[in-house]
């Protein structure tokens, strides 16, 4: 057994985290920074933070992940990191020439209290940041929240630090896509395009973290939201933040500071959440929904209804980020499945409440816990077995030990490809995700069926 020391008996743990279902803020900020065109993310802390984040993101995307670090030493930790950050900005703008540097902090620089805002101001003033170049910065203490919080903080900072209000509407809708895959961002833009709604989607990692093989390395690939677009977010007709944890702060800040009206929605994963997304875009821009979209909706509905015998009543365990898990849970319930164990590592009281809402038909039969960890999820599964596990790659240890069909979803996925190319959001994404679920379940049926009931047609 891979997780041989995990007992069935659940003892309450107050402090010890075992097999976490989250990681720390800075990696989310780094990911968000990569979604600005011409941006080099920068980690203000020890070298290891940057190395770990780049490694994790690289393994997940199998793409170059460029980022720099302030390389704190013991001296910098005692005397403060101003000299390190100024040196870093000089080196970066001289040697790597980005249009913008997205600086995030770490537990180290937060604990010693570096004032990054002041350091960046100084760098603008003394010309370390060249004319026409930008530095956006955000505070991401690792001991608060999770990687989702870090993403949210950087997205908010890129908006409020760059947005301008000229008073003239640009006629566009801002979309903050949440901590999702580049493929999901492409799909959101495609749906908006079908509706004829002009959007500014930020951050936008499509083209950057799912780039082509061309025989040339491009440090700043095509793709990403441009500085001009970010500036223009203050002139948009409205903002939609997808996922309360990852996107609400940014759209609310644009609302408060620039009077861009906002709404916060679940991630558009599954039938109902996608319905709400399309409806929100339609209403915000005052357009009608084309038949092509209704057609895609109907196709998803069609497959779900066709495959009810394989879906209805199947028990599922899910772990992941709150925005993702909420939307996925609703999708599973829509399809007639029963998500019995639901865990997130990211704190936030609204999680349990929202899960209770989308699983209302099952009442108290659902185990939901946030924040918790994969060790706890595994124990829940030992007590009440499931037919399917949905989790990031770390779930494979549980899936193998308990012999459960496994669908990978979330961050990080370290052992499969596809997530950066095939979306989960939208009707098409829902169909793709449903296909993965069905393949996992039906491969298992085929594997385990006695010969006489091994079926050609299912």
């Amino acid at each position, binding site marked *: *057994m891979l*997780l041989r*020391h995990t007992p069935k008996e659940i*003892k309450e743990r*107050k*402090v*010890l*985290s*075992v*097999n*976490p279902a*989250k*990681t*720390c*803020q800075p*990696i989310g900020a780094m990911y968000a920074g990569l979604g600005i065109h011409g941006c080099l993310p*920068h980690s203000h*802390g*020890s*070298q*290891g933070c940057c*190395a*770990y*984040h780049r*490694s994790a993101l*690289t*393994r997940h995307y*199998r793409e*170059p992940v*460029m*980022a*720099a*670090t*302030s*390389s*704190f*030493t*013991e001296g910098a930790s005692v005397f403060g990191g101003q000299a390190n950050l100024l*040196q870093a900005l*000089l*080196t970066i703008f*001289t*040697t*790597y020439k980005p249009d913008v540097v997205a600086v995030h902090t*770490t*537990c*180290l620089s937060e*604990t*010693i209290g570096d004032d990054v805002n002041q350091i960046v101001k100084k760098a603008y003033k003394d010309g370390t940041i060249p004319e026409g170049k930008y530095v956006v910065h955000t505070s991401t*203490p*690792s*001991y*608060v929240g999770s990687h989702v919080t870090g993403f949210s903080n950087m997205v908010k900072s890129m908006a409020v630090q760059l947005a301008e209000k000229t008073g003239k509407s640009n006629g566009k809708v801002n979309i903050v896509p949440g901590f999702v895959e580049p493929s999901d961002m492409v799909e959101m833009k495609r749906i908006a395009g079908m509706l004829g709604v002009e959007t500014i989607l930020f951050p936008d990692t499509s083209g950057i973290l799912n*780039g082509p*093989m*061309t*025989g*040339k390395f491009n440090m700043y690939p095509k793709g990403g939201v441009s500085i001009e677009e970010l500036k223009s977010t203050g002139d948009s007709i409205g903002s939609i933040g997808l996922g309360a944890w990852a996107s609400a702060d940014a759209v609310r800040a644009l609302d408060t500071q620039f009077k861009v009206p906002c709404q916060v929605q679940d991630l558009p994963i599954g039938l109902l959440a996608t319905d709400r997304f399309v409806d929100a875009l339609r209403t915000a821009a005052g357009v009608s929904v084309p038949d092509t979209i209704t057609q895609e909706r109907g196709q998803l509905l069609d497959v779900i209804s066709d495959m009810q015998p394989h879906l209805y009543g199947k028990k599922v365990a899910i772990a992941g980020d709150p925005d993702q898990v909420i939307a996925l849970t609703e999708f599973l319930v829509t399809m007639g499945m029963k998500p019995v164990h639901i865990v997130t590592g990211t704190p936030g009281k609204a999680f349990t409440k929202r899960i209770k809402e989308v699983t209302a038909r099952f009442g108290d039969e659902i185990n939901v816990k946030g924040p918790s960890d994969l*060790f706890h999820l595994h124990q829940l599964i030992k007590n009440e077995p499931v037919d399917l596990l949905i989790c990031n790659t*770390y779930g494979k240890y549980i899936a193998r030990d308990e012999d459960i069909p496994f669908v990978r979803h979330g961050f990080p996925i370290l052992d499969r490809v596809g997530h950066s190319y095939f979306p989960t959001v939208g009707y098409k994404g829902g169909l793709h995700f449903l296909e993965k679920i069905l393949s996992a379940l039906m491969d298992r049926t085929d594997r385990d069926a006695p010969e006489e009931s091994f079926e050609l047609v299912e």
Partner: protein
Amino acid sequence: MTGERTHTVNPEDIKKEILAKYPPKVARKRAKQITPVASDEKDGLQVGANVRTVPGIITQRGCCYAGCKGVIMGPTRDIINLTHGPIGCGFYSWLTRRNQTRPPSDDADNYINYCFSTDMKDEDIVFGGEKKLKAAIQEAYDIFKPKAISIFSTCPVGLIGDDVHAVAREMKEKLGINIFGFSCEGYKGVSQSAGHHIANNTIFKHVVGLNDTVMDAKFKINLLGEYNIGGDGFIIDELLNKCGIDLVSTFSGNSTVDQFANCHTADLNAVMCHRSINYVADMLETKYGIPWIKVSFTGPTSTASSLRKIAAYFEDQELIDRVEEVIAEEMIPVEAKIKEVKKRCEGKTAMMFVGGSRAHHYQELFRDIGMTVLSAGYEFAHRDDYEGRDVIPDIKVDADSRNIEELTIEKDENLYSPRKTEEQMQALEESGYPFKKYDGLIPEMVKGSLIVDDISHHETETLIAMYKPDIFCAGIKEKYAVQKHGIPMKQLHSYDTGGPYAVFEGAVNFFEEIDRMLNANIWQYLEAPWQKDPELSATFVGE
């Protein structure tokens, strides 16, 4: 040396090109760590190393915690490795290094697949985390009943002044199991190397010497600096057993704390990765009287010579003969594979920038199949790993190194026992036996090549543009940036998904892997037909 080819590129020009793009101060600093090998005369070449990385330069390096928890202690399976800090550090070092382990039975302790953390929150930073750490140790004990728990300090722990060692002492007393802490905050030192040092020193202080049981075997050695990436350790162990040599412990591939506790009963220390562990070999010699030699089980020639060195040390004819038999037998498939692969790889070129020993050790494997290494360097080595141990007295100890604890070791009153008499040692040394000898990476480098320590992204790009290597070896962060150029990239930290590459059997794997990477047909299709010939010609013609 076979496969050497004349280069049209002058390494001095490459160095100039690299430095031209840096701010002046950065260029001056980097100049000391970039050493052209202009001629075959390599005496006196210096490589600046183990110095601070310039902020913003895009380095390969990680931190002290990564070296301590990830590299050294990560492979030890029967201990709960508890990270004291915010969740990230524990999360990123969870199962990401491919250090394999093989518990002897289904119910033997194995915590390798687990990640334990105190998951510090803001209130812990403000009010201190010691209480939480104690509670976490208690919970870990209550649930898992492990034989040992170790605590890894992350950056904020040192800054807020949590005394992990006091907590460890208190909980050790309370629970009656071995508990110890590592002061391996990420900001210590200049790279992972500091973490290796802190890990090894702590194990030496808290574990080594606790179990005096002597293994019933004739030729007992420890393997130091072998981390069982991709299963290397397994096949080294098998090979040694085949020769009749037994491992008391490995630091730290496929290891257990019990083996560390018992390692002082071995009769010889064989050091693989000089960088991460040579000081442990020195301490084991001083305290217990165990001599050490440098070995390498990467490449057939080095493997054969290392086996011979071990056999020669024991001065046992039966062992010497057995080793020769094994080498002869093992070389047959290796030679066949070299012959097959060389046809397709000869004349090609490679570069490697990894670790503290592999940028040296792996050169042999490329040479064997007729390839030339155009440029190489380490990520976190010290000068002696480039220039050889003779340079050690000349190395200046700077502020960053001074803060890393050096243990003062003396002979153990009870356990010190010289494995050989002074006369025997002297006789062996006079016959040329290489105790404590390591010449470093420089002797491997060919004329026209370039040594780069702590290479940056910009330097990587310049080397690729000017040298145009056929294959590039580094780590995961570099992998896809290199491959976008259409150049295959081999990870030499984690071996991608491959390995083992050690000893004779692994060499065959490695040759096959390099053959596959160089000759995969995918690299031919980088351009679409319309990119090769963008001119519009005839319009559609119906038949």
